[in-house]
């Protein structure tokens, strides 16, 4: 890869931020999820029940609960952001979580692989599954929507076959059929029993994903492929490789989420994770990433995920019916998408 190609890649990625500087509305969209998160947090504080003068919503325990609740869908949303920026979509992630939770539980309880090899095998399996979806999509020129819809079915089917249609319980201990006790750490909390380990996994992966998307050459390629695939190809970007890589990333993220799921609840279940793909897509869209590709941000996705979690939490703290939560989430998605379209039109008229 030469430097000239590098510059090209950067150029194709820059129009959106450049426009953002000009248009105040675009600025709002760019930070819409952060603004939304701030609004939800303000609302949370305003409506939070309080105890001994302390606002419950802001208590460290409660914040930890919020982040724990979104850790699994959040990890998936991180991967999903890469795919959606390339104008793709991955519907298989929820089923993949189920499959990988089963795989984790099975390897833990039926083999003597040990902790680290088990986790590596699961992560490799998830990554391979994702990469295969990417390859099929490119080789047969199929829409990612279709390929990953098929992937969803296959992952569920595989999970049902592997698990023999039953929950696989993970019991801890030393000896055959027992999982290494250190794996139970995923369901524990650290730092004076406040910070859930699942949360730490999410935060660590979020930092890595942000760095990869924002500072590496690969990150710029992802934007370039989603912004204008032809231009990206002409400027020498390995478009196919980038596309396969983003699906490998969602596969990896789903596997990580599956491991976290198995560790938190001490079982693997083929049916778990149903609908997670939609929660993850919602977080990404609320985060300001365009489903048409080319623009978006990892910080936005993280803020979007936390916002959905905080919203659910404040409604639960006030013992509000779950149906209202669905209504609120729906309204926020429409608002986020509408804002993007408005900016898109303005940019179009300015050119």
């Amino acid at each position, binding site marked *: 890869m030469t430097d000239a190609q590098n510059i090209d890649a950067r150029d194709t990625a820059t129009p959106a931020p450049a426009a953002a500087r000009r248009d105040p509305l675009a600025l709002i969209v760019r930070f819409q999820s952060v603004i939304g998160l701030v609004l939800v947090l303000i609302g949370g504080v305003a409506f939070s*029940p309080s*105890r001994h003068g302390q606002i*419950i919503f802001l*208590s460290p*325990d*409660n914040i*930890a*609960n919020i982040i*724990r*609740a979104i850790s*699994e869908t959040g990890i998936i949303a991180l991967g999903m952001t890469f795919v959606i920026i390339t104008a793709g979509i991955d519907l298989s992630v929820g089923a993949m979580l189920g499959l990988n939770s089963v795989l984790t539980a099975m390897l833990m309880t039926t083999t003597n692989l040990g902790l680290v090899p088990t986790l590596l095998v699961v992560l490799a399996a998830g990554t391979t599954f994702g990469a295969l979806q990417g390859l099929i999509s490119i080789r047969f020129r199929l829409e990612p929507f279709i390929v990953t819809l098929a992937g969803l079915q296959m992952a569920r089917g595989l999970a*049902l076959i592997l698990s023999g*249609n*039953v*929950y696989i*319980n993970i*019991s801890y201990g030393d000896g055959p059929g027992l999982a290494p006790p250190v794996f139970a750490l995923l*369901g524990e*909390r650290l730092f004076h*029993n406040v910070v*859930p380990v699942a949360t730490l996994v999410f935060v660590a992966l979020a930092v890595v994903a942000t760095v990869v998307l924002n500072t590496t050459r690969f990150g710029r390629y992802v934007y370039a492929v989603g912004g204008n695939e032809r231009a990206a190809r002409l400027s020498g970007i390995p478009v196919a490789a980038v596309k396969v890589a983003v699906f490998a990333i969602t596969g990896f993220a789903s596997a990580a989420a599956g491991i976290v*799921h198995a560790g*938190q*609840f*001490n*079982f693997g*279940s*083929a*049916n*778990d994770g149903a609908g997670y793909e939609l929660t993850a897509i919602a977080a990404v869209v609320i985060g300001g990433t365009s489903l048409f590709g080319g623009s978006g941000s990892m910080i936005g996705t993280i803020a979007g995920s936390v916002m959905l979690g905080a919203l*659910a*939490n404040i409604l*639960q*703290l*006030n*013992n509000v*019916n*779950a*149906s209202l939560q669905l209504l609120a989430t729906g309204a926020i998605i429409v608002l986020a998408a509408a804002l993007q379209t408005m900016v898109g039109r303005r940019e179009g008229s300015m050119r």
Partner: protein
Amino acid sequence: MFLRQILLGAAWAAPLAALSAGASLAAPLAKHCGPKDKYVIGFSQANYAEPYRQHVNNDLIELAKAIPQFELQIADGAGNDNTQTSQVDNFVTQGVDLLMISPFEAAPLTPAVARAMKAGIPVIELDRQTNGAPGKDYTAFVGGDNYKIAFEAGTYTAKTLLPDGGEVAVLEGLPSSTPAVQRLNGFKDGVKQNPKIKVVAEQAADWVPDKAQTAFSAMLQANPDIKVVYASNDMMAAGSYLAAKGAGKEGNIGIIGTDGLPGPAGGVRAVASGQWAATFTYPTGAAESLDLAKKILLDCAESVPDTVTVPTLAITKDNAADLDKKLKF
């Protein structure tokens, strides 16, 4: 020759049985019956991938082994009305001697059950019912009473766990599903027996542990004085325990589950190990339905009770350890 008589007999008995099921006309419920033959029982299970339903299957398989005349075939409806309908139709075409079914949903499976009855196959509905009346639209219903089970849990809370009153939380199953509503109402009516008990929070957690953990964490934040949480199934009780542990309150909160499942992740073991206060079994009804099948097929019964309600068993620290040793999974 003998076989031909049976077949002939079946030809006229079938329409009669369909016309008069439950009435006093002296016709056996089954097309052919008697203690010596072999019989195929088809069981259409709503969905394998739920621990409770797996437990039912295991129970049925285990108990059916003891009856040499019976061959049990189980089909997985996979949580899909269409799949289950075609399985029932297959059983009918195949000519099973008796059909057992736990319909995934009531209305969609009603026509399939009607076709089986019309074909002269006795139908025992297990745990869930289709539309219509037992004894008429299907032969019999065997199951627990969700309202009564949860009412028992409420009574146990009101009289044993919190005789002096206190704050209580409820985790509901999937809203709008019948058992979720029945268990919610049963528990709330049960705790009303003690006016000093206050239900301070109720949230739906859709039967799953992750949602239960999230919801109960928030409940504990908003109401730190909660003393008992009633979870409408064992999986949600497991999630509640994780939430209580996260808040550093395990052992201080009485957790009640429902279903009383066996195995390492089931409620029986959780009560035995002291993590939960109690769980109330949702009976499988396997023994009771096989008893009905015996009456119908082996004893040529002309009528059977059309509804068999199987009582719940309270699993508490007094009996959990013994049961845990006894139960197979």
